[in-house]
């Protein structure tokens, strides 16, 4: 199994964590895993909501020292 890839979107105001994730998934293979690092509180809601709508798998979300770590798998 390939290593989980980190998308370090800490301090990214534009395009921001969700946009960055959408872009990276476009060029990824089904089954690849990612962990988004975000300092934007909104990401904790936005990213899981979007994953759910589109049908990718949320593997976990936790906050550590002001940084959100959101893990997911590309499903299609």
């Amino acid at each position: 199994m390939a290593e989980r890839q980190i998308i370090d979107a800490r301090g990214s105001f534009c395009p921001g964590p969700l946009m960055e994730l959408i872009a990276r998934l476009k060029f990824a293979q089904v089954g690849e895993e990612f962990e988004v690092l975000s300092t934007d509180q909104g990401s904790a809601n936005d990213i899981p909501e979007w994953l759910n709508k589109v049908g990718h798998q949320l593997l976990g979300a936790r906050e550590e020292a002001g940084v959100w770590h959101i893990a997911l798998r590309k499903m299609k």
Partner: protein
Amino acid sequence: MNILIVGGGMGGTILANNLARRLAPELRAGKAHLMMLSASDKHMYQPGLLYLALGRMTPDELYRDQASLLEPEIEFYVDPVEEFQLDQNRVKTKSGKTYGYDILVIATGSRPVPEMIPGLAENAETFYTEQSALKMFKRLQTFQGGRVVIAVGVPHKCPMAPLEITFMLHDYFKDRGIRDKVQLHYTYPIGRVHSLENVAKWATPEFDRLGITYETLFNMKEVDGKNRVVKSEEGTEARYDLLITIPAHKGMEIVEKNKLGAGGFIPTDKVKLTMEGRPNVYVIGDTTNIPISKAGSTAHYQAETLGENIAAIVKLGAPVRDHDGKVFCFIECGKDRATYAMFNYTTPPDPKAPTKAVHWFKMAYNKLYWASARGLL
């Protein structure tokens, strides 16, 4: 010290001129050598395409000869790179030549790829190339009313363009006296109308005021031209009479072919601007995978940091500063008002109410850009 810059667009040109000035004594004494390889003998001011699509600029205004923008000390060839042989510190070009370097800078930009979405290229208008902007201009001229849908692919360069084209279309149709016959419907990939929260906060009531409808979490999946419907990854649909899109982008094909980065975007350190695992290879502009706006302004500020650092490597043996991620983007809010967003890695933007003065400053910048490319501004 051999410095090789690949790409003569916004980032590459500003960097080359910046370095030519900083390293003038070393270049004259033969202690440093500065070369640029590009894919075209012309330099396009891409932001002008937005105006071209609405008949407010003409194609000839968008171009200058690349050689005329460069300081004479820069050795310049139109000979696109085909192979990056990074282990050997050299590149191979289309003409079959190889060029060695001590320091390499990759600034080859990005390009819209409508083909990633089935039905998009055949059924949608866009303004991200000269040809497509001219086509959109002609289509708009004959459009007499109906539902106009704006849809945005990710990633794309110029984060302000989706809002700008929407506000400008509002004024365009108003001026033609048909705004009441046109329904403008804006869609956006994430959960608000712009990636910058403060910009979204300002733009949403503007849309309400102007009667522009909007829908968020909308990522194009396919375009059904027969039924004139654009479908989203999220399972929704938008019916259109005229579909205007900003297609998702990739980096240059050559970057993908050489396996430098997925989608043609090169993994890059956001403060050092070095390519991951390659301390003598730098990447600036749209080609990086840094989570920062793909904008000329981004490339400009990166080029200034890198110019200072490469000159310091030549003169002092080490770089002198980290890049702060500065971006400054104008936002056209119609035909005669504009505002701007300025931010960096640590400070979010705080856009002000649009004014005529900022619009005229942008109009002036459209001309001043050539001084900026020469490294004078």
